[in-house]
Each structure stands twice: as structure tokens, then as C-alpha cells.
């Protein structure tokens, strides 16, 4: 490989590092991402300027790239913000699949050249085949769960732990075979077993934990890329893959902490019986419900109101009318803030994205740690499509799936209004005592409609 190409690859690697660095802080996040994209494009152009490629393959390759690009851009453009997590899962999955296929081709080369490859290369190849397909299958399942193509509940069946363990063993045996004498069929079977493992790994995970699993699979894919970098002795793949593998693993732990869960618990909690997602049947205990007019009065004559937005706001797309409501209240001299819980919604920062989309001024978005002290001074807390993030069970009920997750102290306010459609619980699937508190009134209905009604009622005051 000519030196200049090696240097280009190194430069691209540095760009990836800077990209990650940028992405970890708000200031340079976007530039970081663009820098990474530029580096990736450059790196992928290089092979065409350096003539080991069979010319007759070049058009096919370009065609394939075009197809993939169109697909990727289309998906990325059309996905709604609420569906981000499953989109990321999907992209990650195909990446893992690609890595697995590439590894199979490497294996194919080795087989043809009558297996003179050092054992470590074969081990790396086996690793990529297996983990790549795990990541592929796992991501597809997470996608299905989040997209609600299947239940987002943990799927557990009696034989599952056995099947899981068995397929792990099988994978190790096959990998061993492959290292001893490389054969194509072994590789293929290994890939299939990998798919099975991926499936069994993710089925028992509850929907609320899925983003963490995505992040984990993301790290897996990174490591497979690093491994094929080693096999292809391409430093860029090694560095880029390792970067993603390491940062992905670290990020997974960070996210798990932010949701007050442990990774092992998330992955194997369901197996160990303690379901990571509760029952979720609606309760029939009495609650105080309120009509938009009365709610409007409570809000209109308050001095201090805190809004707690949640996933429901996102699905109902009620953020715009919510902003209007807040503006109107502001004009009436009510001090209003939004209390943003780090895991409100279905992805971290979900609420920030949503409300930014609705042009809510940044000063009104207050992070949990900053505003939790203010709830006791609040006259009314308006909980819009949120539930778990204000569920006192996180403090009071050990064993609850969200136990240990820091929550917003809505319960300290003088009055609480919940806007939700039913008594159904939130993502964690557990009942919320706060709904039955005598300070609480419920404004039933789709967040968007009732928000509209509420808005008019407030204007009418």
C-alpha cells in the first residue's frame, strides 16, 4: 500500500477521533459529525485511485454504493424524531451484517489460498462473523420492538436460558474448528448461530431498556470492524472500529446509570425472572379527573407552573400547542418552566429535541438537577404525557423496574395535573401512585386535543 494512502487513512482516523470528541459536547457536535462524514467519504474514495480493484467490478461496486446511499438517506430523512432509536438500531444492524459478510469473504480468500493464515487472523475472522451476525439479528429485533412490529414486552419462554447457553457453546466450538482448519461451511454455520444468539439475547429485554441494548450492539459492531481491520491489516478500520467499540461500551454504562439500571440486569433480568418491564394492566382505583376549563383556571391563576413533558407529548406531537399555552400563561404573568428529565421520552435528550423543534426558548428548559428544588414552590405541575419520570415508586418501591432512577419531584408541588389518555402505565409498565394522590387531577384525552382545549380555555379566562 503506497505511503500516501496510509497517511490518508491515518488522517481519516484522526478525523474520526475529533468527530467523536465533537459529538460529546453541544458546541461542536454538528461540526464533529460532518467532519466524520467527510473523513469517511474520503477514505472510501481511496481504493478507486489505487489499482488493485478489478476494473470490471468497479461499476458494480459504485452501483451498490449508490443503492445503499439512497436507502440510507431516504430512511434518515423520513424517520420521525420519536423513531430515532429504532432507526439507529437498524443502521447499526446492517453495519454488523456487512462486517459479518466481509469476514466470510476474508475466510473465502483464506480457504482458496489453502489456509496459510496465522491462527490469530482466523480467530479474528471467526469473531467478526459471529459478533457481526449477533449485532445484525439483535438490532433487527430491537427495531421490531420499538417500531411495535412485535410486543415491546420481554419475551421469555421456558427453554430460553438453555437455548441461549447452548448456542453460545456451539459458537465457541465452531470458532475453534475454524481456527484449526478453515472451511467455508463452518464459517456460514457460525454466522447462522450468531443470528440465533442475537435473537435470544434481545428477546427478553424490555422496551424501556432497548436503547441501552442498541448502544451495546453498537459497540459490538465497532469491535467487529476493528477485527476486520486487523485481518485486512488496515489501520483505519482498526482505529475507527476500536474507537466505536470502546466509546460505545462506555456510553452504554453511562446510559444505564442515567436510567438507574445495571447492564447485566437489563440483559439477563428477564431470564432471572425479575422482569425488566412490569405488568402494565390499567388500575380501576378512583381518581379525580378534571375538565379543561377547571384546569385552565388552576393554571391561569397560579404564580409558578412547572411543565413536565414526556413520551406522550412526543407521540401526540403536542409540543407546538404546549408552547403556545406557555406563552399565553407567560403573558398572564405566570412563571413557567419546563422540567426536562434525562430519560423522558424514548431516547436520551428526546424532550430537548422535541421542544427545540417547537422553538421553545432554551432558558425555559431546566435540567432535573437544577429544577428539582423548585417543585415545592410550584403551585401547579402540568405533566404532559409523562409518567415514569415522576413516579415516586423509583424512590419508594425497591424491586420496581425503575427503582433507583432519579425522578422529578412533581409530588412536592401544591397541585398536579396529568394529561394522559387513560390510566395505563408508562413504559416501565408499573402503576404510578401519584395519579391517585389527592393533590392530583387528571385531564384525560390525547395530549394534542386536550392541549388545544386547555389553550382555548386559558385564553378565554
Amino acid at each position, binding site marked *: 500500500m503506497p505511503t500516501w494512502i496510509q497517511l490518508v487513512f491515518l488522517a481519516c482516523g484522526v478525523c474520526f477521533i475529533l468527530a467523536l470528541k465533537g459529538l460529546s459536547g*453541544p458546541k461542536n457536535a454538528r461540526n464533529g459529525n460532518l467532519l466524520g462524514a467527510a473523513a469517511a467519504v474520503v477514505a472510501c474514495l481511496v481504493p478507486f485511485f489505487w489499482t488493485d480493484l478489478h476494473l470490471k467490478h468497479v461499476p458494480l461496486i459504485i452501483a451498490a454504493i449508490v443503492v445503499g446511499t439512497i436507502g440510507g438517506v431516504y430512511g434518515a430523512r423520513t424517520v420521525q424524531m420519536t423513531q430515532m432509536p429504532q432507526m439507529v438500531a437498524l443502521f447499526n444492524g446492517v453495519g454488523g451484517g456487512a462486517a459479518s459478510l466481509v469476514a466470510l469473504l476474508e475466510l473465502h480468500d483464506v480457504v482458496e489460498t489453502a489456509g496459510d493464515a496465522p491462527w490469530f487472523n482466523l480467530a479474528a475472522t471467526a469473531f467478526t462473523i459471529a459478533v457481526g451476525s449477533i449485532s445484525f439479528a439483535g438490532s433487527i429485533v430491537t427495531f421490531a420492538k420499538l417500531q411495535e412490529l412485535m410486543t415491546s414486552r420481554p419475551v421469555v419462554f421456558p427453554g430460553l436460558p438453555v437455548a441461549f447457553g447452548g448456542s453460545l457453546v456451539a459458537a465457541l466450538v465452531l470458532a475453534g474448528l475454524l481456527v484449526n482448519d478453515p472451511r467455508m461451511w463452518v464459517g456460514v454455520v457460525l454466522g447462522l448461530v450468531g443470528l440465533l444468539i442475537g435473537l435470544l439475547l434481545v428477546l427478553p429485554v424490555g422496551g424501556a431498556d432497548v436503547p441501552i441494548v442498541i448502544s451495546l450492539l453498537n459497540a459490538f459492531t465497532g469491535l467487529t470492524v476493528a477485527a476486520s481491520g486487523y485481518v485486512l491489516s488496515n489501520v483505519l478500520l482498526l482505529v475507527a472500529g476500536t474507537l466505536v467499540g470502546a466509546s460505545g461500551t462506555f456510553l452504554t454504562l453511562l446510559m444505564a446509570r442515567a436510567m438507574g439500571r445495571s447492564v447485566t440486569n437489563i440483559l439477563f433480568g428477564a431470564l432471572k425472572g425479575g422482569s425488566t418491564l412490569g405488568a402494565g394492566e390499567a388500575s380501576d382505583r378512583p381518581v379525580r379527573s378534571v375538565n379543561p376549563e377547571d384546569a385552565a383556571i388552576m393554571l391561569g391563576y397560579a404564580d409558578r407552573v412547572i411543565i413536565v413533558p414526556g413520551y406522550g407529548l412526543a407521540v401526540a406531537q403536542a409540543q407546538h400547542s404546549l408552547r403556545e399555552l406557555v406563552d399565553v400563561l407567560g403573558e398572564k404573568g405566570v412563571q413557567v418552566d419546563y422540567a426536562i428529565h434525562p430519560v423522558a421520552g424514548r431516547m436520551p435528550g428526546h424532550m430537548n429535541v422535541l421542544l427545540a423543534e417547537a422553538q421553545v426558548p432554551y432558558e425555559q428548559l431546566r435540567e432535573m438537577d437544577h429544577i428539582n428544588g423548585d417543585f415545592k414552590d410550584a403551585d401547579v405541575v402540568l405533566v404532559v404525557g409523562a409518567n415514569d419520570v415522576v413516579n415516586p415508586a423509583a424512590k419508594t418501591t425497591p424491586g420496581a423496574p425503575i427503582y433507583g432512577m432519579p425522578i422529578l419531584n412533581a409530588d412536592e408541588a401544591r397541585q398536579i395535573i396529568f394529561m394522559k389518555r387513560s390510566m395505563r402505565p408508562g413504559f416501565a409498565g408499573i402503576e404510578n401512585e401519584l395519579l391517585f394522590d389527592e393533590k392530583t387531577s387528571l385531564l384525560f384525552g390525547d395530549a394534542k386535543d386536550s392541549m388545544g382545549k386547555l389553550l382555548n380555555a386559558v385564553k378565554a379566562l
Partner: protein
Amino acid sequence: MTLDTGVVWLTIFVLSVFVGIEVISKVSSTLHTPLMSGANAIHGIILLGAILVTGTTDNDLALVVGLIAIVLASVNMVGGFVVTDRMLQMFVRKKPAAPKNDQDGAA
């Protein structure tokens, strides 16, 4: 150089691990999702690997498999960067205000 190839790769690997961890060790939970999807896009660089193996193979089946890999990889890479940018646009729009107007000086 008096170094074994294997050791060299190991060294580069180890150093990259540290870089990967340290570089994101200060990320705020607000950015978890964009960071995740950005990293996701970066490992789309497997596209480079796919191109290399596909372009140099002589076996037709391998060629087909390779082309599939290329399609998947480019979906990962291109889609990943685009979707990340879409997310970040919305953050960035408001970020300039961040330092000044955060009402809570603390933390």
C-alpha cells in the same frame, strides 16, 4: 523496526481504546442519542473493507455477497451520518444561548 507486527497492532488497539473512552467521558446525557448514532455512522467505515474485498475477488458468488455487504455498509455509513446531523440541527439551533442563559449558574 524491531517490533513484531502483532505487537504493533496490539499497541494501536490499546491506545485507541483509551482514546475512545477518554474522548467521550464528559458527554451529557442530552447528547447520548446523537453520540450513539454518530459512533454508529463511524463504524460504517466497514464500507471501505467491503469495497476492498469485493473489488479484489475473482469468485462470482463472493462478488455477489460482497456487493450485498457494500449496500448494507453504505446504508449504515450514509444513513448514520445524515440522521445524526438531522438530530443535531435541532440541538444546535438553540445551543448558542446555552452558556449565558442557563438560569442556574451552579453545576
